[in-house]
Structure formats: structure tokens, C-alpha cells
């Protein structure tokens, strides 16, 4: 059964290719069947492979497909590597991905470009699976760039709108900066270890200088930061919400943005050898966590709130990684996929019902109008704020507990993490109260309210998992070593819950709508809403100078030199041609003068 591993990425790829080649010739139903069906098959296959894998004790499994790059001395294969980490990732991608595809089929059913949509979605899943299953850093990079490409295509899916085009470009380029950092990291690793095969690097006993290793690791972190929208490369994620909501759910919540977390988890043996780098990762996580939380409080677009929330939760994952709690980080990755996908898809249902209205201040009172959807929203948000017993509770607790004890993290980071939990609760309940309670700020009729079953059914597994997913115990012992469960004083373990409760109470006072709510327009609010000034900063530092250069140098300053040569020759011609006046006597005189000079010269020099 494990030999069928190759089918898991292959099925979505084939589906994507078929949909591409038969563009415009398939009915929407067939498109949906193909697009969703391939995902379903992949998910079932993953389940079966997983069962066999665990049954065999979780030993890692390799499957080499073909020779890919015959690099002299270190050939790279197109090979798949299955271990506990990649199994979990694969399960999340195919499982949650299947649900999202199912939902998307209903969501995008009336869009005339639905076939193109599924081409991109399936291609994305293929690339993401290559990312997590690849046995070499080059194959990982293939998946990495592939998901970047698909993200670009999906964000700009409705490409007749200029704003979407700009958002997709921004996403691609900002993540490319991270990708370049990662590429340089790859160069250093190849130079030091002589190979880009992950196992070779990770198990190598070659002594590498601390400075080189630190450089390589920090560059890998740079790549991770770009893909996972952490500081300082986080600016693309809020704008990426321009894409259709299923895209935001799949790519910008459950899978692509977790690629950075996966990278660090996968290469953790390297990171463990370098002094200080994991501490840096933890700091990045925690700072992003708080920044995103603050920004989320100032948003009025429901998807942007969820985007900043994602950014914040990935910050938790980075914190977990930095605190040496790799298993906790991946656990949180999984639970986050459940409840964030649920949240985004629920938001999608709301947006559909609101006729593509995304402003929360134009919603309100949806508990009465859309009770089922609002319940799903509530469940998702409870998981997000780590309500005791929900999946988010277990994973967030694990991370925070590890942070307190880890020597690469510590109490300071723990306190900031707790602050983040407070902020999470605050913005989550703000969202809940403004959207679901209070007077209705919209003008929809009762008849619009009933959700289609196709939009509800795929959410049910996600709801279930968001509630009970915390009880799934993941075994990472062969990858990360035996799990350690720190024993901490009770107040430390329950502080995040207390803080979440505090957030709930504060949100009740601040945001529970007694009359119509409006977005605040204070300076601080606007500053936070616009990503705390990072967009402005990057524009001044990078975009504007580049555009200035482009304007100034369009004619190529180097060409001026060659124009000068041409100009010089023509001017010389204009000067010299004066002597070509056609008059015979002048020519005679010239000849004779020349002769005289030559003779004179000869005579004088003899």
C-alpha cells in the first residue's frame, strides 16, 4: 500500500492536467467531480497509507520515482520520503483540502471560469504535496515555488480587477524574496555538505563552521518567514484575501502558509546545532503574533481579520518551533488547519449570503438570520481562542507550556504569548459580536437565508475536528525524539484560559453592539489597519526607488556612451568635411604642404 504513495500527489496533478487540456469542454458538474474527486481519492489513499504506516511502526519510507538532476558528484532524484512528519502534513493537506475543494465546487459553481479554478487548485495540492514529501531540498524548493505560482494564480483569479492583479503580484514577489534567501541557504548547504538530499544533510557528521551553519539556517528562516507571512515579510497575506474564499481557506490558512513551519521542523537537526537561531525563530513568532493581533483589531473586512488571525497563529507555531516543541508546533498546525479552514469557509458562506459584502459593519444580527452558519463561526472561534476542550486549546497550551520551560525561549516570551492569547480572544469576540449580534446593518430578506447543503456538508467534518481534534495524539517520536510533557504550576497552565476570558469580557464591553457599530477612523486605528506601517515602509524603501530607476534609466545610460561614439564620429565628419571643398587648388596646396613638411622633417631628423 505504501508503494502507492506516488499516487497521492499524482492524482491531483493528473486531474489538473486533464482539466487544463479539456478547457472549456467540460460541464461544471464534471469539472467538480474531477477536481473534488481526485482530492477525495488522494485523501482516502492517504488514510490507507497512514494506517499501514503506523501499523509498521512509523519507520520512514522512501520511494524514488526517477533520476532528476545529475549534478556532478551529488545527483538528485525525484524521490518521496514518508515519515511521521510528512504523514501528518499529507493528511492535513489531502483531508482538509478535500473538504475545501468540495465546498469550493459549490461556492464557485456559477463562476464561468470554474474549470480554470480547479486546474489551479489541484496543481496547488500537487505542489504542496511535493513540498512535504520531497526527499531533497531541491524537490522541496520545487513544491515551494509551485505553491507560490498557484497562490499567485489563485489570488489573481478574478483578474479583470486591477486590485486583484496587484495583490497577486505582491504575494509572489514578497514570497520570492524569501525564496531567494532560501536558495542562498541551499547554496551554502551544498557547499558545506556536498549534497542537497535532506537525510544526507541532517544525518551528516561533517563538521561545519558555526558561522556558515548559522548563515544557512538564518537564510532558511528567511524563506520560511516569506512563505508563512511572518515578520518582516508578512505584508502580502492580508492583500491575498482578494482571491476567492476557498483559496484563502486552503492556501492562506491550512497549507501554503504552514510550509515555513514545515521547513524549520524538517531541518530542525541543523537548527539545533546552531547557537541562538531557534531563539530568533521564537522571537519572530512572538512579535508577529502580537503585531497581527493588534492589526486584526482594526480591520473591518471579515477576511482580513481572519488573515491577520492566521498570521498570528502561525506566530504561535514559530514560537513552538523556537521553544524546541516541534511536535506541539505541528500539532497546532493541524488543529489550526481544522478551525481556520472552518472559519474561512463559514466566512465564505456569510459573504455569499451578503452578496459578496465583506464589511463586518454592514452585517450584524446574523445569529437570527443564519443560525447554522453563525454556530459554525462560534465553534471555530472558540477553537481559535483555545476554549478548554477544543482542539486549539490542547495545541496552544502545549506550545505555551513548552515556551515557559525551554532554554531557547523562557518566561518573557511566554508572557508575550499570553498577551497574544488575550488579543486573539479580543478580536475573535469582536468579530463574533459585530457580525452575529446586534441590529442588522444589511438589507437582506428572509428568503435569502437558507444555506445550500453543498456548502454545509463539507463543513461538518471540519466542525467535528475543530471540537475533538485535540484528542488526536500524534506520534513524532521517530522524527523529533520522545515527546516531553513539561509539568508546570497550575497558574501557568491556566493563564491563557484566564486571559482569553478577560478578552471575552473586554470585548463584551467594547464591541457588543447595542446600536449600529461603525468602524473607527482614528489615526491609531488606521495605522493598525494598514498593517502597522510596514506597507508604507517597504514602498518607500523598495518600490519607489525601483520605479524611479525605471523611469530615469529607460533609455539605458550605458547606451549613451555608444551614442556619444556615434555623435563624435558624425561631428568629426562635419568638421573634417570642411576641408573637402572640392577646390583643386586647396588640394594641391595641401599635397605640397604635406610633402614639404615630410621632406623638412626627414632632412631635420637625418
Amino acid at each position, binding site marked *: 500500500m505504501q508503494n502507492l504513495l506516488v499516487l497521492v500527489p499524482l492524482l491531483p496533478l493528473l486531474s489538473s492536467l486533464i482539466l487544463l487540456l479539456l478547457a472549456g469542454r467540460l460541464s461544471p458538474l464534471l469539472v467538480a467531480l474531477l477536481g473534488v474527486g481526485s482530492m477525495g481519492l488522494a485523501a482516502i489513499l492517504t488514510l490507507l497509507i497512514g494506517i499501514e504506516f503506523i501499523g509498521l511502526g512509523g519507520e520512514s519510507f522512501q520511494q524514488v520515482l526517477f533520476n532528476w538532476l545529475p549534478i556532478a558528484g551529488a545527483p538528485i532524484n525525484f524521490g518521496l520520503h514518508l515519515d511521521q512528519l510528512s504523514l501528518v502534513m499529507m493528511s492535513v493537506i489531502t483531508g482538509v483540502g478535500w473538504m475545501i475543494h468540495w465546498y469550493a465546487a459549490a461556492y464557485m459553481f456559477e463562476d464561468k471560469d470554474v474549470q480554470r479554478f480547479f486546474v489551479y487548485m489541484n496543481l496547488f495540492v500537487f505542489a504542496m504535496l511535493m513540498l512535504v514529501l520531497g526527499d531533497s531540498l531541491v524537490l522541496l524548493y520545487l513544491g515551494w515555488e509551485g505553491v507560490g505560482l498557484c497562490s499567485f494564480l489563485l489570488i489573481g483569479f478574478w483578474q479583470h480587477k486591477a486590485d486583484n492583479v496587484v495583490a497577486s503580484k505582491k504575494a509572489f514577489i514578497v514570497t520570492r524574496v524569501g525564496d531567494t534567501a532560501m536558495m542562498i541557504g541551499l547554496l551554502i548547504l551544498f557547499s558545506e555538505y556536498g549534497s542537497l538530499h535532506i537525510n544526507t544533510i541532517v544525518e551528516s557528521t561533517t563538521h561545519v563552521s558555526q558561522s556558515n551553519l548559522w548563515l544557512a539556517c538564518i537564510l532558511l528562516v528567511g524563506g520560511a518567514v516569506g512563505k508563512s507571512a511572518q515578520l518582516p515579510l508578512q505584508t502580502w497575506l492580508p492583500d491575498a484575501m482578494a482571491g476567492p474564499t476557498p483559496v484563502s481557506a486552503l492556501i492562506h490558512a491550512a497549507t501554503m502558509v504552514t510550509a515555513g513551519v514545515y521547513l524549520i521542523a524538517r531541518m530542525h537537526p541543523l537548527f539545533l546545532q546552531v547557537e541562538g537561531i531557534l531563539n530568533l525563530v521564537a522571537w519572530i513568532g512572538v512579535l508577529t503574533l502580537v503585531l497581527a493581533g493588534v492589526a486584526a483589531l482594526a480591520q473591518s473586512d471579515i477576511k482580513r481579520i481572519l488573515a491577520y488571525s492566521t498570521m498570528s497563529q502561525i506566530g504561535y507555531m514559530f514560537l513552538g518551533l523556537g521553544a524546541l516543541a516541534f511536535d506541539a508546533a505541528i500539532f497546532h498546525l493541524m488543529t489550526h488547519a481544522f478551525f481556520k479552514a472552518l472559519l474561512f469557509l463559514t466566512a465564505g458562506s456569510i459573504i455569499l449570503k451578503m452578496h459578496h459584502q465583506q464589511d463586518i459593519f454592514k452585517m450584524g444580527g446574523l445569529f437570527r438570520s443564519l443560525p447554522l452558519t453563525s454556530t459554525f463561526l462560534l465553534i471555530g472561534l472558540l477553537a481559535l481562542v483555545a476554549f478548554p476542550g477544543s482542539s486549539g486549546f490542547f495545541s496552544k497550551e502545549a506550545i505555551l507550556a513548552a515556551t515557559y520551560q525551554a532554554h531557547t525561549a523562557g518566561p518573557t516570551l511566554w508572557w508575550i504569548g499570553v498577551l497574544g492569547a488575550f488579543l486573539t480572544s479580543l478580536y475573535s469576540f469582536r468579530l463574533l459580536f459585530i457580525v452575529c449580534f446586534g441590529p442588522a446593518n444589511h438589507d437582506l430578506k428572509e428568503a435569502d437565508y437558507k444555506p445550500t447543503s453543498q456548502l454545509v456538508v463539507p463543513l461538518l467534518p471540519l466542525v467535528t475536528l475543530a471540537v475533538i481534534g485535540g484528542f488526536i495524539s500524534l506520534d513524532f517520536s521517530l522524527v523529533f525524539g520522545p515527546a516531553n510533557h513539561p509539568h508546570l504550576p497550575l497558574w501557568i497552565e491556566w493563564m491563557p484560559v484566564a486571559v482569553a476570558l478577560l478578552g471575552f469580557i473586554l470585548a463584551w464591553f467594547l464591541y457588543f453592539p447595542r446600536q449600529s457599530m461603525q468602524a473607527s477612523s482614528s489615526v491609531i486605528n488606521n495605522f493598525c489597519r494598514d498593517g502597522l506601517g510596514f506597507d508604507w515602509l517597504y514602498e518607500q524603501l523598495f518600490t519607489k526607488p525601483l520605479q524611479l530607476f525605471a523611469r530615469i534609466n529607460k533609455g539605458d545610460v550605458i547606451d549613451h556612451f555608444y551614442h556619444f561614439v556615434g555623435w563624435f564620429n558624425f561631428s568629426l565628419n562635419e568638421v573634417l*568635411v570642411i576641408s*573637402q*571643398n*572640392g*577646390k*583643386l*587648388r586647396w588640394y*594641391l*596646396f595641401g599635397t*605640397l604642404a604635406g610633402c614639404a613638411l615630410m621632406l623638412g622633417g626627414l632632412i631635420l631628423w637625418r
Partner: protein
Amino acid sequence: MTVPIEHGFVLVALLWAIGLVGLLSRKNTLFMLMSMEIMLNAGALAFILAGSLWQQADGQVIYILILSIAAAEVGLGLALLIRLRQHIGDLDIDKLDEMKG
């Protein structure tokens, strides 16, 4: 009294220079031809003197040669002159400058 041969060569040089100056400073083509004749004759005189110096008849032979060349040249030159006069109505050599630029 024999005239020193140097005087002869000085005469040749002077004649040649006069011819040259005339050639360069004259605009009328006829006068340019005449000046060229003077230059040719100066050259021929130089050969006579040389022949006399070496006591050989070769100098005089070359003199005849030069004279005949000069005559041929004058013939051609005058023919061209006539055509020139017919073409531009004038013998001014500065008017022939279509090869400029």
C-alpha cells in the same frame, strides 16, 4: 668663363618655385597650365645640367622626352580647357567643386 653648375641648379630651383607659386595662386586654368609648363621646363633644365655635368648625352635625350610629354600634356590640357569653357562659360578652376562634402 664657365658658369658654375650650382648656378644652373639655383636657376632650376627658382624657375620651379616660380612655376609652383603661379600654379597655386592662379585661378585661371590657362595660367595654371602655363605655370605647369614652367615647372616642367625647369625640370628639363635640371636634366640638361646633369647631362653636362656627367658629360653624357642622356640628359639631352631626356630633355627631348620631357618636351614631348609636355607638348602632349598641353594638347590634352588645352582640349580640356576648351570643354571647360564650353561647360561653365568660364576658366575659373574654383567653379569646379561638385566633388565637395
